[in-house]
């Protein structure tokens, strides 16, 4: 008899996948706003998964930053562009089919790999949900990559300005 947390995990995982699929290929609506809202739902389901892993801080960040800030930005852009119906992306059956095949094949490989692996011992989980250990990892062990990421953000900013600004002198 599976435990309750296991049931929760399978439920949330299925929701994540389902919402994710509806984000990229929604058979009922071709409105980009609908897609964006499904992305919000995907992110929230993922936050649920983090909670199950006792990663409460990450779960909160996931909701606050992604579902909150980033998605609002997305929605603004979509509404500002206001694409007319005929310019919106058509989903081709062929593309969808090929995509499904690719995903299925890769999933098959994962399943095969995981089914042959010995399960991890519970003691291997060394990152518990507290904010403090997470901060220690980020600012001590992984300090260098963390700082490099700030440079990455700068590059992204410069890039966006360069590529989108009307006339740069």
């Amino acid at each position, binding site marked *: 008899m599976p435990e309750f947390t296991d049931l929760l995990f399978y439920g949330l995982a299925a929701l994540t996948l389902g919402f994710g699929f509806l984000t990229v290929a929604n058979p009922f609506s071709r409105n980009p706003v609908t897609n964006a809202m499904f992305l919000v739902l995907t992110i929230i389901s993922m936050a649920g998964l983090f909670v199950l892993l006792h990663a409460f801080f990450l779960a909160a960040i996931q909701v606050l930053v992604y579902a909150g800030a980033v998605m609002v930005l997305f929605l603004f852009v979509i509404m500002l562009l206001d694409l007319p119906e005929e310019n919106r992306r058509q989903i081709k059956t062929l593309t969808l089919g090929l995509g499904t095949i*690719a995903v299925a094949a890769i999933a098959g490989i994962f399943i095969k790999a995981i089914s042959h692996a010995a399960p991890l011992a519970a003691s291997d989980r060394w990152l518990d949900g507290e904010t403090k250990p997470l901060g220690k990892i980020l600012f001590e062990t992984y300090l260098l990559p963390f700082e490099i990421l700030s440079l990455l953000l700068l590059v992204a900013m410069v890039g966006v300005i360069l590529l989108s600004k009307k006339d740069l002198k």
Partner: protein
Amino acid sequence: MDAHVAHTAVEAVKAVGDSGTKLQDLAWAVLFFPLVCALGTLLFARKDRMLAVGFNIGGVVLSFLLSFVLFAVYGGQRIDCTPFQWLPLEGLNATMGLHLDGLTTVMLLVVTGVASLVMIFSTGYMKDDPGYCRFFMTLSLFVFSMLGIVLADNLVMLFVFWELVGVSSYLLIGFWHEKPSAGDACKKAFLTNRIGDFGFMLGILLVWAACGTVNIGGIELAIAKDPHVLGATASLAGLLIFMGAMGKSAQFPLHIWLPDAMEGPTPVSALIHAATMVAAGVYMLCRLFVLYTVPAAWPASLDFLGGLNAATVISWIGGFTALLAALIAIQQNDIKRILAYSTLSQLGYMVMAVGLGAGLATPNPSAGMYHLVTHAAFKALLFLGAGAVIHACHHEQDIWKMGGLREKMPWTFATFGVGTLALVGCPLFAGFYSKDAIFATALESNPVLFGLAVAIACMTTFYMCRLVIVTFFGSARTESADHAHEVAGSMKWPLVALAVPSLMIAWLPLGDFLAGHFDAHYHSHGGDVLFGPFNHNALAAFFGLFAFMLGVSAAFAVYWGRSKDPLPAKLGQLSRAMRNKFYFDEIYEAIVVPVHDAAAAVADWLDRWVIGGLGVRGVTGVADFAGRALRLVQTGSIQTYTFLFAAGVVVVALLALK
């Protein structure tokens, strides 16, 4: 110079050598003088003709003089010059060193000597050419590369200079690059040579892997210690290395480039495509002769070849090339092409002699090398003579449009005559003795090839006499031949200078000297050098004499007093085939072009279908494909790429994780 004075001078120089400065390092100077001169011309004398001539001829003549000093001092001693640490890595111990011995010093003299004379000749021949300075510069570059091949003490360095020779030959064949035929010819030469060079490179790698060194002396030592050191790849390595010689020395089936290379200026043909570069293949076989003395061995997959020796294959390829080229030469009418096919034929001779030399009781390739030296002298003479004739007849090259040049160009006639007599093997002339050495080797090693060699000698005499009779005797058949007159001094004297060795080089004990280099226990067959052949192997010598007389009388019977070639009528189809070089160019074209087209088609198919739109064709009809393909290129192709990327992941995963 008085013999005593010469002796004292040599002793004095030796004393300098003993006193600490290493005299043998002069070889570096021999090698680099031409390069320095070429660079000097490039930097300072691109416009100044006098300066360019001074630089380049000075450099090569200086190299010649230094080579002579080295020869006089060291004779046949084996000496390594102070090496330059080229790749001081553990594993690949390739130092750049120079090696001097009997073989290399003789070759040094041949290269620098012929090059000096050809350059002097060119000052007259190229007088009106706008690329005058460039010409001399490229010639110097060639001499540098060629000397590098001669002096190199390891295979890597040999290969590098080998390629450099290819490049300078490419530049010289295409010297008149505004002529499309010259452009095609230099490309053909270059590409054909590359095929051979790939084999050569693989051969070098095999030898290196087996012996653990690329130093030629080291390889000789390794094989002397254990003849089976090359293991199962012994014969394969020998043949792969021979592929390099096949390209440079234009052996069947890579012979097609040499006749076309005559598109270059005639002095180039004399120096590169007659005397030196094409001989590099033969020289290299002699230098690496030790590889052909090992017992035959093949990898398991080629076991059916059994005891077939690399040397045997080489001798048959040489013999076949010689025969083929001689047959073609009989029915050519262009004076340079006759000489070109004659060169091919003689190169075949040399290669055959080297191959046969490996089959002797004491393996010795000196007959081929001996012929190389004499051939360098008289064939350069013949080409320069032909150049003089062409120059005098206002660039007419068809021998049937000449005639009667004997009285108008007496010097050219006399020297050309000496060259011809040397080539056809008239007793007392150089060619007789070197050919006899080949006959003697063949008779001892393989009687069938001996018969073939005699037959080819007969044909050689026939076509050369045909050339002389038609060009110089009779009466002028065209206006331009009628108005021909003797060439200027700068062109005349090099001819005379080359005529001397063509006649007299065999009066020196050169053959014995070379044979002694390969076989320390070699004994001269004694007696007078001039009658040596009859003492040594009388049967071979008589056959040589017989071939010479038969060829001369046949040529006089057929061509004396004719103004049109009677052979095509008599031989019919055969004559046509000979005139058309047995259709080799056409056959190659028929093979190469479809293969090339097929490769291009495959490539095009890959590019268009695999990249452009995999998976599209199966679903939609061919009719609306064009429109869809365009759209795919604009937006859809990223999806295709992504799909292929994911498919790639799956394939890699299947391979990696089983």
